[in-house]
């Protein structure tokens, strides 16, 4: 191997390594993906037919601090839940409920590698309404599709570190 080709190969390999390292994903959450899909498909924006409430990680921290400073026994449960939640997005639509429900389900199925439906019983013949995304063994994103017939359609998107204790507390609500 000549010196030149060895150097070239070395640079090539280092480049490959760097690109693999940099490919550590910076992803969008599900609701953000849904909204950009809807904008592409229907050309509707956030203020038109649907709304989206965003609670960022910094607001979550503020809420937690506020709760900790308050002396309220009623908030103990939410105080145990909130540290597991990093952010929340709530997509809601009151018009074209079917359209948005279908769009959300389609997107979830399209990203089947990332999102898996959570159903306790496989025999239940219903569309899954809770979907989860894992990183390793941890649940890092939870999506709940909540449809009230002829009323509204909601997608609740939570990101964070959702452990067993988190689910435990959530079920008590």
């Amino acid at each position: 191997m000549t010196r030149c080709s060895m150097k070239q190969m070395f640079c090539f390999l280092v480049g490959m390594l760097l690109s693999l390292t940099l490919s550590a994903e910076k992803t969008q959450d599900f609701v953000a993906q849904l909204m950009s899909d809807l904008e592409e498909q229907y050309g509707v924006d956030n203020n038109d037919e649907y709304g989206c409430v965003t609670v960022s990680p910094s607001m979550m921290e503020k809420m937690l601090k506020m709760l900790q400073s308050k002396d309220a026994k009623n908030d103990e449960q939410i105080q145990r839940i909130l540290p597991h939640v990093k952010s929340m997005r709530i997509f809601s639509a009151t018009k074209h409920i079917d359209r948005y429900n279908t769009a959300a389900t389609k997107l979830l199925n399209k990203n089947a590698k990332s999102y898996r439906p959570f159903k306790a019983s496989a025999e239940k013949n219903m569309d899954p309404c809770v979907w989860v995304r894992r990183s390793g063994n941890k649940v890092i994103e939870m999506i709940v599709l909540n449809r009230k017939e002829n009323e509204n359609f909601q997608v609740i998107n939570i990101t964070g570190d959702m452990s067993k204790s988190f689910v435990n507390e959530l079920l008590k609500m």
Partner: protein
Amino acid sequence: MDYKYIEQLLERYWQCQTSVQEERILRDFFSQKEVPTHLQRYCALFALEKDEEELHLGADFDRKVLSRIEEPVVKARRNTIHFRLAPFYRAAAIVAVVLCLGLAAQHSFQNDTQKPGVSYNYAGYQDTYSDPQVALDQVSSALKTVSHGLRESGLHNVDSALVDGSNDDKM
């Protein structure tokens, strides 16, 4: 003829006490044609010595020997920094190949849900509410909906289903 002197020289010769000059006298004596009978047995010895004395190195002896023992002239070569770093390049390339193969294998065998290191782009988040209390009300209400959704999915008591993935539908 009195050969006493020769016999004395011979005696000294056997005792290794003769000088170079005395040995030459002996050789000259024994190279004569007429040597007494009792001394003739030594003729061969001194004749041999005389023959060997006449042996000389050839004119090309030095050249031949030197050509055999002299090392070939090696010109000094300047080692460049690249040449000196070549082993490190090679080692780094091997490490890089192994890492690349490992990462590629890991990348291809893992599905997306198992990939560690998924991070969200929180920089793009714009809070809808500026008041934490209003946000908290909204979050509490949404969490109640999530709780309801989980119960609807059949999860009524704590198990590890959600966390370890054992309760997932296979897709």
